[in-house]
């Protein structure tokens, strides 16, 4: 099983709503990621969790709140989003957590399409 599973596939939310995106992997990977991808643009890193601890926050606004309940799950809690936050949100995972190791191959989920109205 080399899959990263994301739910929901599509989400429409108002600017005052609170919602969550969920991500799951059962590959035993110890690093998990959230990326944001706007149309026709490359993915941009938001957060990295390593061994269930937040290791990188790329200066993401606090209206995005990540959570890693266990080594297989990663959530992204959304609150008071803006229309410009509409994008494809990608979850990913990798076996390795260090520099220069072959475990750095990162596997992506299909993404959750988020529309903020």
């Amino acid at each position: 099983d080399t899959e990263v599973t994301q739910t929901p596939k599509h989400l429409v939310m108002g600017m005052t709503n609170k919602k969550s995106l969920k991500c799951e992997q059962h590959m035993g990977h110890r690093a998990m990621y959230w990326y944001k991808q706007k149309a026709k643009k490359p993915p941009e890193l938001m957060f990295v969790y390593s061994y269930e601890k937040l290791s990188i926050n790329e200066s993401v606004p606090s209206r995005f709140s990540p959570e890693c309940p266990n080594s297989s799950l990663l959530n992204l809690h959304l609150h008071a989003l803006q229309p410009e936050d509409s994008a494809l949100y990608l979850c990913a995972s990798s076996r390795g957590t260090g520099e220069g190791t072959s475990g750095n191959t990162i596997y992506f989920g299909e993404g959750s399409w988020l529309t903020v109205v």
Partner: protein
Amino acid sequence: AQRVTQPEKLLSVFKGAPVELKCNYSYSGSPELFWYVQYSRQRLQLLLRHISRESIKGFTADLNKGETSFHLKKPFAQEEDSAMYYCALGGAAGNKLTFGGGTRVLVKP
């Protein structure tokens, strides 16, 4: 700082023609380079990584540290190769993967 440059936004080739996607990187440490492909309405998939030196779907890429490049090549393009291709650089502490801007490949019949 890590940076990846893909100078071509769009490459249009005829079926059977060679295709080369350029990728240049900037990184002071020991780089790990990847090519990811995103077919229409599908997830981002790993195509190649330099460390394994393999050929996938006829694509190859060689890391040239002197020129800081990791160009992707295929001698005979197929229509099913039409997709968005991203070059990505890893290797920083914390597994930070930096993507280039992407190159859309269109293979015409």
